[in-house]
């Protein structure tokens, strides 16, 4: 039935509220609720009961029993409590159950009574024991506040990112405060506590005394307090039966009135902006043994037999429905009312956009479906909007109601990625935990159902399987993962590195290949590691690159393993000039290279390297004897340097020892002689035998050094075919000098001219000189 509520708004006016029966509870509770630890999650969440918790003697037969029910009283799971003394139960925002023990350990269970993890509230709590605890929710997540036996408060604002805070001491606090509450103001979590007639605010750093504005001086000692769902309002109950109501900032008083009872209510909660109390007396129409659950837009009240929802009537509807009565269980009353009104009213409006109407209808059907007592999630429209459909779907998934969740997705036409995929993925993750089925069966079932639904990540399902200790199943599931790159991290984690390497290479992501290679390197012994790489050229070349930059010695080992003598030879040659500084070291490195080259049957390289050893030794001798740097020059440059210094004998010796081809020797010798301007020696050399490079190069080199006079000598010996070229060269010197307008150059050319043969050139230059003088 529906009953008008006798409650107070902050301003003290009586407002209209209605109470609806949600369910008659399916549980067959023998115990009184007051004998159990009770916790009910908001948003129509589950109810947890810890029975036999208060018995002092703990015989094995009477261990506490933890039970979890849906809001309709349908049992979800139960477990015998074998852990320590529980002080407080509470639900997290993601519907996990927190069991706070006397020793400060907090155990987390899911709603199927499966243990998830635990954490401790710290040493201080462990030593002094938990006397009271509260679970609270802020924008930071779910928090836990503890009052210890030493009358100190400890809290954490987010159990998923545990940071323990010990609140400052309350001066002069010798016994437990009579009541306290957690407030959240401006993103700061604070504690309000009462000791007799004094109120204290505890924040991170300080403790301050506060007085509620406008409270009557005879109000008495505070015995109970309540904070509203949104932390906006505060109510204080005193031992004189007076209730003060105001903002939780304690800046504004909204009302004060006195009750006709003095004993503090067992539970006092806010109902939207109105206060409800659950007293030990039969003051209100409530059952004696009831439990209040504050909700966003009302209060849920359940007892051993019924579950009711107390709901404020919106002003708009109030006018019409003041005395009306509704069908029992009409949770959706308000929304439905609006729907009826809307569908009725719609007929009179031709421009009413149908979309929102249709959407609302769909939402209502969803709410109806989950309200069913088998499901047992009684949500109001307002709660549903606040919770969002995504979270609702997650909650269905959490209850393993996969088919219903999928039906809702389809009904609401959510995108596959947002809806069905998520749910299927979660289903698959649940599926892999079913130990009674074989790996093949499970893997097949998952693939059958999931196929290639977009957004499904097989690798994450596999990860879940692996977490459950089912490596083989994980590998099977991974096979369905189309992105090979996605398979790699898990395969590595499962120590299937070789398989991971294949997949990484398949993915074409070299960064992944590197990762696997480095893994393998640590995991395998060197020999096996190298063998593995040999089979994978892509990985091998990447690792070689890595070694070239990071570990040269490893590179050598790699070649050794492979009997790659050519590369070993190269390696030694490289180190002969890059890492070795002393001649002996360099010769030794080169000797190693020679050996390797012979093994590689690369005779050319071996011979060339032997020559280099010979040259190095020679250069060192030259360096010692002539006190000039010769080491590190090429053969050509060494001989050139010798000639430049006039060491013709030694140059000749190198020419013979290293079998320098005649042509090269002639080229370099005339070049060096010209640079030395040793024209006499050049002429002598030119006549030593017939030039293998002809005589045009002599002309060229002389002209290059602006010696036209010498050049002419050789021009005469140039073969007839090249004679024209030679003469062009001879003329170029004059032209160049004229072009440069450089008098010195011109004079140089003039000095090398003979009047008889070069009259034209002389004339040309003289003309140019005259021009310059004119300017």
């Amino acid at each position: 039935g529906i009953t008008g509520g006798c409650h107070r708004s902050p301003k003290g006016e009586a407002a209209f509220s209605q109470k609806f029966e949600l369910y008659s509870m399916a549980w067959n509770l023998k115990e009184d609720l007051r004998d159990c630890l009770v916790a009910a999650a908001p948003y129509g969440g589950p109810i947890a009961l810890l029975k036999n918790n208060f018995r002092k003697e703990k015989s094995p037969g009477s261990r506490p029993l933890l039970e979890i029910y849906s809001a309709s009283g349908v049992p979800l799971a139960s477990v015998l409590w074998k852990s320590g003394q529980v002080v407080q139960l509470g639900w997290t925002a993601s519907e996990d159950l927190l069991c706070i023990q006397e020793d400060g350990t907090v155990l987390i269970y899911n709603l199927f009574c499966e243990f998830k993890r635990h954490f401790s509230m710290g040493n201080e709590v462990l030593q002094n024991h938990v006397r009271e605890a509260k679970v609270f929710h802020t924008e930071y997540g779910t928090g836990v506040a503890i009052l210890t036996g030493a009358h100190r408060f400890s809290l954490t604002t987010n159990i998923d990112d545990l940071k323990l805070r010990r609140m400052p001491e309350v001066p002069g606090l010798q016994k437990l405060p009579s009541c306290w509450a957690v407030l959240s103001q401006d993103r700061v979590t604070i504690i309000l506590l009462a000791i007799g007639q004094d109120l204290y605010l505890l924040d991170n750093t300080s403790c301050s005394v506060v007085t509620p504005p406008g409270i009557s001086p005879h109000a008495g000692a505070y015995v109970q307090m309540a904070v509203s769902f949104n932390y906006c309002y505060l109510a204080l109950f005193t031992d004189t039966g007076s209730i003060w109501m105001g903002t939780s900032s304690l800046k504004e008083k909204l009302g004060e009135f006195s009750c006709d009872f003095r004993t503090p209510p067992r539970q006092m909660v806010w109902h939207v902006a109105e206060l409800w109390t659950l007293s030990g007396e039969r003051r209100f129409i409530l059952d004696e043994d009831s439990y209040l659950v504050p909700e966003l837009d009302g209060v849920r009240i359940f007892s051993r037999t019924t579950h009711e929802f107390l709901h404020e009537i919106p002003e708009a509807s109030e006018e019409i429905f003041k005395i009306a009565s509704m069908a029992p269980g009409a949770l959706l009353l308000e929304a439905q009312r609006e729907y009826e009104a809307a569908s009725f009213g719609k007929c009179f409006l031709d421009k009413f956009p149908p979309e929102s109407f249709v959407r609302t209808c769909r939402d209502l059907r969803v709410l109806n479906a989950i309200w069913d007592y088998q499901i047992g999630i009684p949500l109001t429209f307002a709660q549903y909007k606040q919770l969002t459909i995504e979270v609702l779907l997650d909650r269905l998934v959490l209850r393993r109601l996969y088919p219903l969740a999928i039906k809702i997705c389809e009904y609401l036409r959510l995108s596959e990625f947002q809806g069905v995929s998520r749910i299927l993925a979660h289903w698959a993750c649940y599926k892999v935990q079913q130990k009674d089925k074989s790996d093949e069966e499970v893997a097949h079932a998952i693939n059958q159902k999931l196929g290639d639904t977009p957004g499904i990540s097989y690798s994450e399902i596999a990860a879940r399987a692996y977490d459950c200790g089912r490596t083989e199943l994980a590998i099977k599931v991974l096979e369905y993962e189309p992105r090979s790159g996605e398979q790699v991290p898990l395969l590595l984690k499962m120590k299937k590195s070789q398989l991971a390497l294949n997949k990484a290479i398949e993915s074409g992501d070299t960064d992944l290949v590197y990762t696997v290679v480095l893994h393998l390197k640590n995991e395998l012994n060197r020999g096996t590691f190298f063998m593995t790489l040999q089979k994978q050229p892509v990985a091998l070349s990447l690792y070689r690159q890595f070694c070239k930059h990071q570990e040269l010695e490893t590179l050598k080992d790699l070649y050794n393993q492979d009997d790659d003598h050519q590369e070993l030879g190269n390696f030694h040659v490289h180190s002969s000039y890059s890492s070795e500084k002393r001649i002996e070291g360099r010769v030794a490195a080169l000797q190693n290279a020679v050996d390797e080259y012979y093994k590689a049957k690369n005779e050319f390289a071996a011979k060339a390297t032997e020559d280099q050893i010979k040259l190095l030794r020679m250069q060192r001798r030259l360096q010692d004897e002539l006190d000039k740097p010769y080491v590190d020059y090429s053969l050509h440059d060494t001989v050139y340097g010798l000639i430049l210094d006039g060491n013709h004998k030694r140059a000749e010796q190198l020419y013979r020892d290293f079998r320098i081809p005649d042509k090269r020797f002639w080229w370099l010798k005339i070049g060096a002689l010209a640079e030395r301007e040793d024209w006499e020696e050049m002429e002598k050399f030119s006549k030593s035998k017939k030039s293998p490079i002809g005589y045009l190069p002599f002309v060229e080199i002389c002209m290059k050094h602006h010696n036209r006079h010498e050049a002419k000598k050789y021009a005469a010996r140039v073969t007839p075919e090249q004679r024209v070229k030679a003469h062009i060269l001879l003329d170029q010197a004059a032209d160049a000098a004229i072009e440069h307008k450089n008098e010195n150059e011109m004079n140089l050319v003039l000095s090398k001219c003979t009047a008889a043969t070069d009259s034209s050139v002389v004339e040309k230059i003289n003309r140019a000189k005259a021009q310059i003088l004119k300017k």
Partner: protein
Amino acid sequence: MSGKAQRRGPPRGTAMEPLVTPHWPRCGSCLGTNQPLPLLQFYSCELVLEEEGIYGDVTCDEWAFYLLPLDDDLLSMELPEFFRDYFLEGDQRWISTIARALQLLNSLFGPFTNTYGIGRCAKMVYEVWRELVEESEGDSQARRPEISHVFLMDRDVDYVTALCSQVVYEGLVDDTFRIKCGSVDFGPDVTTSDRSFKVLLNAQDKVFSEIRNEHFSNVFGFLSQKARNLQTQYDRRRGMDIKQMKNFVSQELKGLKQEHRLLSLHIGACESIMKKKTKQDFQELLKTEHSLLEGFDIRESTSYIEEHIDRQVSPSESLRLMCLLSVTENGLIPKDYRSLKTQYLQSYGPEHLLTFHNLKRIGLLTEQAPGETLTAVESKVSKLVTDRAAGKLTDAFNSLARKSNFRGISKKLGLIPRVDGEYNLKVPRDMAYVFSGAYIPLSCKIIEQVLERKGWLGLEEVVRLLNGNEFAPTEPVMEENPAWEAQRVILAVFLGGCTFSEISALRFLGKEKGYKFIFLTTAITSSARLMDAMLEAKV
């Protein structure tokens, strides 16, 4: 649905995020969002950071560095190391980077409906890119593509072109002064002052844009004509009244001065190039190159190269000529291979033993198998067995050593134009003009042929000689709207670098056929850069 998942979901990790929880009470904060994770995570970097124990102190961000637009039609990835890393060391780490760059362009200007290519790397990039496309399917469909044709080519498909001396202005400027990232430093000899100027070379430079694709022999004439025009424009101010003069000064003078400055810079550059390049030496060098391309007077060319080495003309030029000889001749005969290498080592030091090893591995400087030659064996065999079997045998030989087969390809594709009389460089008739009419760049010819034939049909023999790895669109090419055809834009992708000569040649081809080419290259390259990448030198 088939068991093997073909379709790809949106980016990773979204479907399985931790369960979203409501906030209690909700204070303006939002619920979990589905933000896609970055595609590439630096696993190895993270591993190193972790090992060093500083992982938590470091925030990693990925800077996706794909494409640097150097000009209106030129995108460079500025990865000069790619050439050595991939072709020499077999390092594939850039493949996915390139594929993602391609995908970026595809999503902006695609969809690329006609994708052709040749080369192992090109094929890998193509395949990785295809996967990226599948993953992001549904993003950009059914719109008219701005770029519909793509051609991917590995540098090792055509080494010959990259090894030739460049004679088109932009290429010549690159060979002479080295263009870096679209700009060049003109030294005092160009600026005729004591300062160096950094000049941006792109389509914005009005003078440069008119001469960049010209054969060098035309450039000087063009510049002097331009100078005369400029003078005329300056001269107009004579006989102007005050008002006209004011107009002239405020509106035209600045532009003229700018043009004047650019003009004098380019004239300076030309002079500097002429000083270096029009010497007899350069003429002889070009003559040798042309002989090598045509396959005449090989002995003479070999002696020329030997002399080049003996005289220490230039280490990288000598090496380049050796490579050109090897690539055009399918490797050096063993005697030359040994003697040229010996000469080179004597000139430049023993560390080049490693340079030669690199060149051999990459296929730039190889030795013909002793006694062979391939053709000799082939002809002997073909006398005994049928042609088909001989073909197979050739394939077998090919798989043993990667052959350039330049001679055969050149003949098949007609890369050496037959010219009666002088090749008119002022009014070029084909892409050969970029090499003075002596040679049509192979890379560009392949692109031309494939686009013309809409695939590789009829080019089977060429493909075989190029060692395969060709690809073309799998679905039959849609009959295109002729209007689109007229303004077809083609993305030419060069893996391992392209030269300015190739760019000029394709610009020319585009003009002839009414296409527009956009170039995407891992880096601008040139013969000198190729050689530098192979050089092992003391540091």
